[in-house]
């Protein structure tokens, strides 16, 4: 194009998938931040009970399950990179199982809160902000599980080409994001607000 000397450096641009998923994570973090802000703003401001200290119990097992699912998905990825399809499928399936357990636990917790403790979205500002924040997170777990399951099924059917490791990695990044959000949520909801 010009008479200038050719560029010596190789022209390497970042991967579109990675930048897209990072942008998605940024935008979703902004969304969660607002619901978190609402939750924190209304801490201690409910006019009537039930109050967090009365009805919330730290979800130890569920949290452990979700956070370990991040570890298992990493194990799965490592297996994929090594070419060990069997181990990849195994750890990926364990990840799905742990995530499903987390959802099941949330379901039972909410069942108890609604029908035994009589806490709903409409009960007080605690109910409003609790269900919206935790529910927003749970909806992202649902989406994540859907994506993970899709990958597992397609992979078991042999429909995923060998060079699609980055695509699969992107799903795991989304899953890590969902877990990281949970760390923030569980701290705000089950550790800090249970003082009220």
């Amino acid at each position, binding site marked *: 194009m010009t008479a200038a000397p050719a560029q010596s450096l190789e022209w390497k641009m*970042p991967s579109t998938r990675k*930048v897209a998923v990072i942008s998605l994570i*940024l935008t979703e973090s902004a969304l969660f931040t607002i619901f978190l802000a*609402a939750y924190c703003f209304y801490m201690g401001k409910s*006019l009537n009970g039930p109050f967090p200290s009365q009805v919330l119990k730290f979800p130890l097992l569920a949290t452990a399950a979700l956070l370990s699912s991040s570890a298992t998905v990493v194990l799965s990825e490592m297996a994929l990179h090594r070419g060990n399809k069997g181990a990849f499928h195994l750890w990926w399936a364990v990840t799905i199982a742990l995530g499903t357990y987390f959802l099941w636990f949330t379901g039972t917790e909410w069942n108890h809160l609604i029908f035994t403790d009589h806490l709903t979205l409409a009960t007080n*500002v605690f109910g409003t902000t609790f269900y919206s924040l935790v529910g927003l997170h749970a909806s992202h777990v649902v989406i994540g599980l859907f994506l993970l399951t899709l990958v597992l099924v397609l992979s078991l059917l042999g429909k995923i080409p060998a060079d699609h490791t980055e695509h699969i990695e992107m799903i795991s990044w989304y899953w890590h994001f969902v877990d990281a959000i949970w760390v923030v949520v569980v701290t705000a909801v089950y550790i800090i607000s249970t003082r009220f």
Partner: protein
Amino acid sequence: MNHDTPDENFQIPPPERIGEERGSLTRIVQEMVFTVDHKKLGLMYIASGLLFFVVSGLMAVVIRIQLSGPRNHFVDPDTFNRLFTMHGTAMVFLVGMPIIFGFANYLVPLMIGARDMAFPRMNAFGFWVFFFSGVLLYFSYLGAPGLYAAGSAPDIGWFAYSPLTAKAFSRGHSTDYWTLSLLLGGIGSIATSINIIVTVACLRCKGMILGRMPLFVWLFLVVAFMVIIAMPPLSACQIMLILDRYCGAHFFDTQAGGSAVLWQHFFWIFGHPEVYILILPGFAITSEVIPVFSRKPIFGYPVMVAASVMIAFISLGVWAHHMFTVGMSSITNTFFAISTLLVAIPTGIKIFNWLGTMYGGKLRFELPMLFCIGFLFQFLIAGLTGVMLAIAPFDWQLNNSYFVVAHFHYVLIGGLLYTIFAGIYYWYPKALGKMPDFKLGIWHLVLFTVGFHLTFLPQHVSGALGMPRRIYTYDAGRGWDLWNLLSSIGVIFQVAGILFFVFNLIYSYVKGKKAGDDPWDAWSLEWATSSPPPSYNFETIPEVRSRRPLWDLKHPDDPDWKYE
């Protein structure tokens, strides 16, 4: 489009199928509906935005007729309240946002030497979601009839403060049309912005390091980041409002200990960056037009980039200057006054840089340049009235008065719209292959400028004389009559100007002089391909060595890369 395979393998697509009539209506509609081409989508965004501009502008005409004199009965109060709500909502979300995304869509891939955006199908998705959201908002006029004073277009103001939006005070479904339309529109905006970020980060041609991108591309990168951070608060607001209205939630329910002010916080955390999202593309266009028509490079490119990034960051921390009157503490008020004044600094610097670009140049007063000069003058006024509003005590008088209305119309019409006109006249030859008519453009410029100032300059005065916003009528004897009359007369000139503009767009397409690849003798990559560009943009992807690759081509003895 597979970004993993290198471009060397690119084959120019075969020519059009023989036997199919070019330009038949079916063909055109089919192309429009199924296209994923960034250029077509860009033009569709701009065309839709201009269509909504005309509709929303007509609403403003009715508003000004009603306010031309005291105690008029041209429209009843509820109709008036719907008019200003729809006017504001449409202008921001259905005119401003799509037109800026249209410019980004069309030009960003061309300017960075790419063949399309990173995700063409998501691009199309973003457009159609926006278009549907616009139709949904206007559908509210027909939508489900409800109770007394309900069941029509939203009438809650474009920022829909709670508790006016609670079910108790906003019966029927008009508010819900507003909520859903904006929720959808937000999804479209976020999708398009992610597309822009990925495109700019990953698809630049060889040699185009970030420091060699056109300022237009830089500014849209900043805008895209602002959108993905600032739009979710609005989405959160909408979700919370729906939950409040239909699921018994108490986010903004003051009866249950909720806070009406919380809506304002969350809304303006979106709303303030939003207005910078709207004006930064205006800066983008100006930063391309002024150098070319001054025949000089932009003065202080690195500072312009730094100032834009600073504006983006600071703008995330000024939101409560819309809330100086809600009774926050003196410390909070002082903090937000300070942050708002700070954001004026990088903004002011940009004006100086544009002046510095023109200084020592050989200014060509073509239509794009004339509109940019208008922008500089009017944006200066807008910025200064903004400084006045940043002074919290002054704002305690001026807030929610016609002074604020004057300020933001100077920003959005005097600022953004003028740069949009400049951009349309500048890139019209590239997109449509014909030159816009100069004389018609001058009629447009003069009529519209006279009308614009006649309408909005007096509003500073009526605001200072105590006239609040959003009132459907006023009493005689308050000192507001003359200013309102002048304001309404100005509308006639603005309408005339827009008529000339629309006529110019059509006339030039049909009868205009054929434009070559590079009619303005410009320097960025979009001028290195034909007018209009082929669907694949470039035969071979270019390689650049400086910020002005075409300057290097035209001046091989004195290329930019020797000095940068």
